[in-house]
């Protein structure tokens, strides 16, 4: 039996047979291979590949970075757009707030005006006081004035029946022309003398005088001016005849 080394050794016949093979490639094959090798050695393929491969890798990297960062940038831009849009909304709401404030202010003014306008009606509706015209609102007469004016009228004209005349007198019943003539009938000196407060007059009279002095030139209706004028005249006359009763607290 042969050893392993002997088994691995090829028989002489085999080695001779293999060595006897003398076939060679054709000249055409040799030329094809050598021509191809020369073209590859000096050809542009290898150096070109070396040069464009880094550029291609860089382009791929830029593309990857671009496509990976683009959605984030778009999201950021959308956020920034939202932020930019937000002030417009706030300005609009501010405008609305301003408008609401204006409406509120107007409502407040209207309410205050109505409150002032209804105040004299309430006072006058209690009794003998005439219905105050709408133009009296801007005089800003205090309720205390009207109370005391009404009490004074009742007190002063209870005997003469003037208060009833005043209460029944309406601004519409007297034309503007008539009231204007009556005002013109008296000179300013007479009016000032009539409205001049005296030393022995009480606080009610002083209130009336001060109100007339301050407000008669500010659009006080003619009827009221006439009534006040007559009231003051009668008060002066009564003061000259007898001292007024001290019913009011000092």
């Amino acid at each position, binding site marked *: 039996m042969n050893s*392993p080394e002997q088994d691995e*050794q090829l*028989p002489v016949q*085999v080695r001779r047979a*293999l060595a006897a093979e003398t076939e060679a490639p*054709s000249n055409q*094959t040799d030329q094809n291979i050598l021509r191809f*090798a020369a073209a590859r*050695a*000096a050809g542009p393929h290898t150096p070109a590949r070396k040069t464009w491969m880094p550029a291609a890798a860089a382009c791929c990297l830029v593309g990857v970075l671009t496509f990976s960062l683009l959605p984030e940038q778009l999201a950021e831009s959308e956020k920034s757009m939202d932020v930019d849009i937000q002030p417009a909304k706030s300005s609009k709401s501010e405008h609305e707030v301003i408008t609401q404030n204006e409406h509120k202010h107007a409502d407040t003014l209207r309410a205050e005006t109505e409150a002032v306008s209804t105040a004299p009606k309430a006072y006058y509706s209690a009794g003998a006081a005439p219905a105050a015209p709408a133009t009296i609102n801007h005089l800003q007469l205090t309720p205390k004035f009207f109370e005391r004016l009404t009490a004074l009228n009742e007190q002063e004209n209870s005997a003469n029946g003037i208060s009833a005349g005043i209460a029944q007198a309406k601004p519409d019943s007297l034309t503007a022309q008539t009231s204007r003539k009556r005002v013109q009938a008296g000179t300013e000196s007479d009016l000032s003398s009539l409205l001049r407060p005296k030393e022995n007059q009480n606080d009610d009279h002083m209130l009336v005088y001060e109100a007339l002095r301050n407000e008669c030139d500010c659009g006080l209706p003619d009827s009221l001016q006439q009534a006040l004028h007559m009231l003051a005249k009668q008060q002066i006359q009564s003061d000259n005849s007898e001292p007024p009763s001290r019913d009011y607290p000092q």
Partner: protein
Amino acid sequence: MTNYLHRLRADESLMMAYQRGDASAFEVLYSRHRLPVFAFLRRSGAAADNVEPLFQEAWMAIIRNKDSYQPSASFKTYLYQVAHRKLIDYWRKHRERDELAEDTADTSPDQDNGLSRPEADLLNAQVMRFIQQLPDEQRCAIVLRQQGFSQHEIADITNVGAETVKSRLRYATKSLRNALAGAHHE
């Protein structure tokens, strides 16, 4: 002059020179290995008409992939690795070993139209027919071993372990001995 100097250089140095664009270095390499590689392909079972295409494809692959060659590896081993891969592809595609065996049988002295041949040629032809009847990998190992490659080099070329190569060689040799003994007895 250049080719003369190239002939003094090793295969690896010539291949590095060709990587740098020196075509004459490749000419020297090709002149050194063209016949052994062609014989390897021819003896490993490829039909005569298919040997040259396989040979050309193997060298074309060496040229195209010259930049991937590393000088740490033997160029000869590298060259036969490429040729062996081409041969494996050929085996898988064609399986022309049987046809080649028939062609070899056709050229037997008995069917040679009465032309007398020397006894050596008759014996070589008979041995070659036995070789062609071996399994592909055993035949490849026998051919490579005949061309001077060690078992480790054959293992590197065929991409198998050294023990596998050893086993293939043992089985191939035993088969050839048995075939030659039987033919001698006949």
